[in-house]
């Protein structure tokens, strides 16, 4: 039981930062950015490049991946999404899925399909009272938790965070009140990008890094964000834990091959039972 909770947290910790990023973009611009999986893949490859060919330690690689993804995400906004602001959510969604496709194939073009892994010694678990836990799990969960708390603190405690929330609530009002809306938006995008880079690094600790990561992570990320109510970073993290738990239970008690359907099933359930999400209080209705 405790083992299952630990495993759930370990899985959720990977998805949660990306779900926070998805939520942030949704609250700022009111569209679902399906390219999150693509950017996580970019993050994983960036971290690998810094870690293996360049030989830097993994924490440097993680920071590097966050910088790369923040820049790439800001660039994608500058080149693609900014020009489309005001177009329907559907258009932006379509563009983001095409972008995701492009990113995945750019990674395939550059790195090939051979799988890659971080330079990380593989060791067994530490056993405490029959509960097994690895150093990696401890590290992944604490880094992920810390990152989410930092983002939460920025949003609540700092002036730029408050400005960000004001812009998300009502951009024209924020503009009237004299807030520098474009730079606040860029800040929000950079934070989201960094979180995607972080998820990319964390996913590489567990999985083999290859371009197919894109589709493997997209649905769990979006499912976690939706279940979390698309409102707050804490909600997104809670959503990730719920999805992780549902996946663990599916493998343990139902068929492991249906794990990929769990995200969809949970979304469907939430939409039926509680369209406003678990912790959120509103869903954008057309």
């Amino acid at each position, binding site marked *: 039981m405790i083992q299952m909770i630990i495993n759930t947290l370990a899985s959720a910790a990977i998805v949660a930062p990306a779900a926070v990023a998805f939520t942030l973009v949704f609250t700022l611009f009111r569209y679902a950015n399906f390219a999150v999986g693509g950017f996580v893949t970019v993050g994983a490859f960036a971290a690998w490049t810094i870690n293996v060919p360049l030989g830097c330690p993994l924490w440097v690689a993680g920071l590097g991946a966050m910088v790369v993804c923040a820049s790439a995400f800001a660039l994608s906004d500058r080149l693609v999404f900014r020009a489309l602001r005001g*177009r329907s959510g559907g258009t932006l969604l379509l563009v983001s899925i095409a*972008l995701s496709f492009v990113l995945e194939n750019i990674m*395939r073009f550059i790195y090939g399909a051979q799988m890659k892994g971080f330079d990380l010694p593989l060791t067994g678990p530490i056993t405490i009272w029959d509960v097994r836990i690895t150093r990696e799990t401890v590290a992944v969960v604490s880094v992920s938790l810390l990152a989410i708390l930092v983002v939460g603190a920025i949003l609540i405690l700092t002036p730029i965070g408050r400005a960000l929330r004001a812009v998300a609530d009502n951009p024209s009002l924020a503009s009237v009140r004299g807030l520098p809306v474009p730079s606040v938006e860029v800040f929000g995008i950079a934070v989201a990008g960094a979180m995607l880079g972080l998820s990319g690094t964390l996913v590489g600790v567990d999985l083999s890094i290859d371009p197919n990561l894109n589709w493997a992570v997209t649905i769990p990320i979006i499912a976690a964000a939706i279940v979390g109510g698309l409102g707050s970073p804490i909600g997104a993290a809670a959503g990730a834990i719920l999805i992780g738990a549902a996946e663990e239970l599916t493998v343990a008690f139902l068929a492991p091959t249906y794990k*990929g359907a769990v995200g969809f099933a949970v979304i469907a359930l939430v*939409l039926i039972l509680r*369209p406003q999400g678990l912790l959120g209080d509103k869903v954008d*209705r057309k």
Partner: protein
Amino acid sequence: MDSYLVAILTVAGIYLILALALNLQFGLTGLINFGVVGFYGLGAYASGIATETFHAPFLAGLLAALIIGAIAGALVALLSLRLSGDFLAIVTLGFAETIRLVFNNEDWLTHGPSGFIIVTRPVIAGLSRTATSWMVLGVILLAALLVLLLMMRLADTPYGRVLRAVREDDLVPATLGKNIFMYRLQAFVLGSAIMAGTGSLYAHYVQTITPDNFTTPVAILVWMSVIVGGAGNMKGTVLGALAVVFIYEGTRFIGPWLTMLDAEQISALRFIIIGVALILMIRFRPEGLLPEAYQRPAEAASRITPSKG
């Protein structure tokens, strides 16, 4: 004659029908369906199971595909249609992924990853290979033509105008007493049924279907056809589908000239080009190659009210 050309045209015909159905959902009604491959695959397997497991004739298989596609479309729509468009997109994407897992895992029904073999053809048995492939092409082009005429007719009717009005702005038709939800549901269900029907045609054309035949890249090509041709314009979709299939198959013949790239890079490059083209198209020419004839929704809606009177 050139049987490869026949094969390409057959594939183009299949993509065309899928794109027309998507154009009804997205182009006319504004519904974002990323689960094209889900409905398409569902129809393919439903038809295959009907004809092979239950020994039904081809037409019964096609009918089974249409019915199951409509039911699945209705269920997906009921789940998410009341919410904003983003949710429909997410739910349809998840639906396609889930349905593919079902194809892959339920071996007793679908033979799982080894593939479902379909012997029944949509044409008279016992003809020569060439004659059969021409006949299959004929059947698929006939189906495409029927769907095209149906869609063009639909787009021009008062019904089609209401769909456009629903797409543009919910309030106008709503204030005119139209039940927006019902219109959306009908358009989505009809589109899904046609996609499933296309799956049936495809299944009896290729004769072996595996879960890998129904992955997201196929949906991207269909979306590409609609956007390039011009959302809302059915003739544009014809142009779009032909362009996409010829670009996709045509790149096979370019390979030998790109010797500095390996096969994997060429394949990745092909998808990069398609994705970038799609983004550029939406960015700079959102109306597509053949734009939909412009008509202000309010005007259209008011014109139909008297006839409804």
